[in-house]
């Protein structure tokens, strides 16, 4: 028992510290983009940030809480429609409407969760899709927002974002960057917290989790609702950028769920790094192959199949298994006191690293 107090627990590694500094520098560089990037580049980067946010959120839901939803477009579309309704009918300034839409997303997700949590596994997945369809059909009934054919954001609302076009574009760019960073920070803090530890435990073994004091239903409910709120806020930004909304675009399973699942799966599900890598790979593929038409989608599918066969844990899972890297400092390492020699520890060289042990 005497050895215990001499050990300490490290929550940061040199790699995670370096990653933090690099991320900070990168963030500053990206925040200055309106001064160095062209209009088209900024638009593309905004889209990338919004996809990154969606991917991180879906990863939290499916990769950590085990809630494989194929109906997150319900909240993207809900967020978009709420933004249009709030700005057009209530005259809420667009930039204020975005966080309000997030709160609305949380509120709508609560009854949805009570309904959908009665289903498990594949039934849950199909259930979420059904819910999204219900949302889509409901939105198509709102004639004040154009019904089935949708509507555009009135010029007065657009102008209220900022007076000049370049300022408007900078503002929407910053908001996209801001929400991606916010989502990443929320996901990181959540996973580093007590609640995140519980989620990770649930991901690995539900029976042991509940026997060790974790209320599984409550943990999943919390994640579902938080994810829904943030997804709705992202949805609001997506359609603030598009300036036009229609039920088919807002509740598109292809755009807001299929591509997002592709991103998370090729990047590495159940890791924070995965969705980031996946988003970059997805945009690289899209931008280089977009001219190929439907061949582009076939290549996308081919890439997904290759990665699922060759590296089922995605690109980051493949890298981590070989390097043990953990850029977001989610793991906790027990550190031997520096004055203890190898004899006291029964040879630390024998100790296999967490990363390389994962099978």
């Amino acid at each position, binding site marked *: 028992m005497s050895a215990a107090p001499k050990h300490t*627990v490290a929550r940061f590694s040199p790699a995670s510290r370096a990653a933090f500094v690099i991320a900070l520098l990168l963030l500053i560089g990206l925040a200055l983009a309106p001064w160095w990037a062209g209009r088209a580049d900024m638009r593309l980067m905004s889209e990338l940030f919004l996809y990154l946010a969606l991917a991180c959120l879906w990863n939290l839901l499916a990769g950590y809480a085990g809630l494989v939803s194929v109906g997150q477009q319900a909240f993207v579309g809900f967020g978009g429609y709420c933004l249009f309704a709030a700005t057009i009918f209530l005259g809420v300034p667009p930039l204020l409407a975005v966080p309000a839409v997030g709160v609305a997303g949380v509120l709508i997700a609560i009854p949805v969760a009570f309904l959908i949590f009665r289903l498990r596994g594949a039934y849950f997945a199909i259930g979420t899709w059904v819910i999204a369809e219900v949302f889509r059909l409901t939105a198509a009934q709102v004639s004040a927002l154009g019904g089935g054919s949708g509507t555009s954001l009135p010029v007065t609302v657009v102008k209220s974002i900022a007076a000049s076009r370049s300022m408007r574009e900078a503002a929407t760019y910053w908001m996209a960057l801001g929400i991606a960073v916010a989502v990443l920070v929320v996901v990181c803090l959540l996973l580093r917290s007590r609640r995140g530890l519980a989620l990770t*435990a649930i991901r690995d073994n539900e029976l042991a989790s509940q026997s*060790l*004091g*974790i*209320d599984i239903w409550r943990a999943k409910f919390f994640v579902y609702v938080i994810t829904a709120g943030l997804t709705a806020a992202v949805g609001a930004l997506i359609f603030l950028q598009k300036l036009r909304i229609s039920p088919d675009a807002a509740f598109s399973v292809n755009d807001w769920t299929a591509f997002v699942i592709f991103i998370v799966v090729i990047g590495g599900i159940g890791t924070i790094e995965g969705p980031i890598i996946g988003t970059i790979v997805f945009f690289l593929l899209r931008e280089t192959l977009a001219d190929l038409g439907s061949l582009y989608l076939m290549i996308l599918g081919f890439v997904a199949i290759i990665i699922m066969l060759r590296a089922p844990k995605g690109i980051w899972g493949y890298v981590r298994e070989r390097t043990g890297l953990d850029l977001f400092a989610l793991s906790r390492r*027990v550190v031997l006191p520096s004055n203890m020699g190898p004899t006291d520890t029964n040879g630390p060289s024998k100790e296999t690293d967490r990363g390389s042990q994962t099978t």
Partner: protein
Amino acid sequence: MPLLELKNLTKSYGAITVADDLSYEVAEGDALGVIGPNGAGKTSMFNLITGTVAAASGDVYFKDQCITGMSAPARCRAGISRSFQVPQPFGAMSVFENVLVAATQGAGESGQAADDLCLDVLDRTGLLKRANVAAGGLTLLERKRLELARALGARPSLLLLDEIAGGLTEQECRSLIETINDVRASGVTIIWIEHVVHALLAVVDRLIVIDFGKKIAEGEPQTIMESKAVQEIYLGIEVDA
């Protein structure tokens, strides 16, 4: 006042009865051994006590409170923790994190206190050297130790051990007995299901025998082991009167 009391617990799966009017008490600080043939309902009894399975009828009392309707996680937070016969590690998490789950969720600790509790438990169960290894990469013996470590990490007042000595070498078994006796000395009440009878007898001061979900004998370990009922039913020996 007993720490744990089972009152007429009954549970069956179709034609198979795993608990048949099961009643007994465990006083605070006691160490109770449970023996019985495979499929007698020993593990099911643990499932009923920890709340992972609901009883068809009967009640469970813990610290003078009826916990029959309490969920499994709430029972763990109230002070009941268990080890699983078939280890159930959080495979992708490190050994330390496995125990940290118990310390933060079950024992409700946080920050430095949680870290210290985990390090102490890992030290007592001989897993400190393996603290950073992913639990999925442990050997069977280490997985069994991790089961014990996690159960202790929840800082239980009642510890349920399910065949934790099975498959260990003589030496490993001796060190396990020492660890469990230590735990008991720290004031934790223990119920231990075990086929390795000599290990059980080194710790417990009372035995119950279960067969077909029924308690068929209860008392002093020596008396029970020598009783006709145990030799006939548990060991499968025909004893001539």
